[in-house]
């Protein structure tokens, strides 16, 4: 996590007894507006914080996330990743390196997989964004075939990289680059898994590709 992330300062696990309650907390905070959209201003010296916040240029942007249209005013520095997590409460998309090196923040923008951490939110006027939360039809609907494949193949341990892996896998299959294990490995190389679940991740992408073809 970046030191700029307001939630990185403390240990999130210590703050909340379960992952579920932390998720609820984040969602509630985002809705009530208690969490600032831009992390950077919170990193400023306390005396200068108010000034920096007031001076930081912001822009208005309208975009569609998982089918829902949003119009927001954001600090120009806000990444798509921070917009999703801190403003919309969509914490399924993960912050790993915050530098385009790990793929944990992978989402689809206008149908193409991109790194949310390197995408400035202000640049997404009119864009269609799909996150892991928007991949299956709803809470009670069936999982996306690739989500199901990750479960069937046991393709994760800690699960932190999984949303990014799945979104990247969806892109990989759509692009037609999932034709063999070697091709999947090459075209999924932008997603790092520190648990080392690569063999099973490749099997999951293969499974979803095969089912799609039937």
């Amino acid at each position, binding site marked *: 996590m*970046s030191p*700029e992330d307001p939630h990185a300062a403390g240990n999130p696990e210590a703050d909340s007894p379960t992952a579920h309650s932390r998720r609820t907390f984040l969602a509630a905070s985002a809705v009530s507006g208690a969490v600032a959209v831009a992390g*950077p201003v919170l990193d400023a010296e306390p005396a200068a914080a108010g000034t*920096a916040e007031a*001076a*930081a*240029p912001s*822009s208005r942007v309208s975009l569609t996330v998982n089918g829902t249209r949003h119009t927001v005013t954001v*600090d*120009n*520095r806000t*990444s798509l990743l921070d917009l999703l997590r801190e403003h919309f409460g969509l914490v399924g998309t993960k912050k790993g390196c*915050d*530098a*385009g090196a790990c*793929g944990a923040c*992978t989402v689809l923008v206008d149908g*193409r*997989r*991109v*790194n949310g951490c*390197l*995408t*400035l939110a*202000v*640049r997404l*006027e009119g864009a269609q964004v799909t996150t892991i939360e928007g991949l299956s039809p709803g809470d009670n609907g069936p999982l996306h075939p690739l989500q199901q494949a990750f479960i069937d193949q046991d393709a994760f341990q800690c699960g932190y990289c999984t949303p990014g892996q799945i979104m*990247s896998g969806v*892109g*990989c299959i759509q*692009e037609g*680059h999932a034709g063999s294990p070697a091709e999947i*490995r*090459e*075209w*999924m*190389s*932008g*997603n790092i898994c520190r648990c080392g679940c690569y063999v099973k991740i490749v099997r999951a992408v293969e499974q979803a590709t095969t089912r799609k073809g039937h």
Partner: protein
Amino acid sequence: MDPFAYTRVSDTRAAIAAGRQGGRYIAGGTTLVDLMRETVERPGSLVDISALPLRDITVTPGGGLRIGALVRMADAAADPKVRSTYPVIAESLELSASAQLRNMATIGGNIMQRTRCTYFRDVTANCNKRSPGSGCAALDGINRSHAILGGSDACVATHPSDVAVAFAALEATVRLLGPDGERAVPFAGFLRQPGSTPDREQALRPGELITAVEIPAFPRPLRSGYLKVRDRQSYEFALTSAAIALQVQDGVIRVAKAAAGGVGTVPWKLPAVEQHLLGKRPSDSLWAEAAQRAADGARPLRHNGFKVELLKRTVERQLRVVGGTR
């Protein structure tokens, strides 16, 4: 990240007006946003050029190819004209970065990307490129990944692009539009060696915008390809790389174009290799002889001496892949 003003432009005239006033152009943003977050880059104003009409790949009247500056790396690599005419360009692109980054990054931005030197990216380290006059921490530091060609006492950082190596080999032209109109700069003169001013990386004038990269036509069939050698199989910058293009007619090499990546402060053209190949018949021994000239003039640093031999072997291997085994 420092605060910045943000402007979106829809035509080149507005872009150049904004650029002339000090606005920094942003296309894919994959390098710039990363470096801004690290405060290596601190632009006060960003000019978003992604809506400009610079997204076409067209055949030029002379039979070459013109690739718009805002064509995404993924789209350039997938383009049938690029793949059939200049495989070396498609291969160099597909061996770059990750699929996500290739969906974002553009051709113009790719050749504008800045070095991956760790001292450049570490704002607490001395770096003449980031902070002119502060010194170069890499000269006496960990310099395994640094340049063996084109370095100076001020800077030994490599240029990280792969497709720029293909462009250098093919003697591409960079088309620019600025306050004083259009001009074309040969690729060899577009990216500058560091000398005493490593902070000046391109031959760009204030407000100038890259509009396209043009690849000249060559006699057909031109065979070409790109080999990238790195510490891990994928999603990694080159230790060494080779872009090779050959045209053989009546058993004799008529066109030989070669450049290397990962070894130079700019994509490194290999004229001695090219000269040795011209007019000769392809053979394994010819590839080996020519490749011996790939590292001419190399000045290795403490930790990157291995690149001298690795470069020669990279070039030899790719000559054999493109030219065939005899």
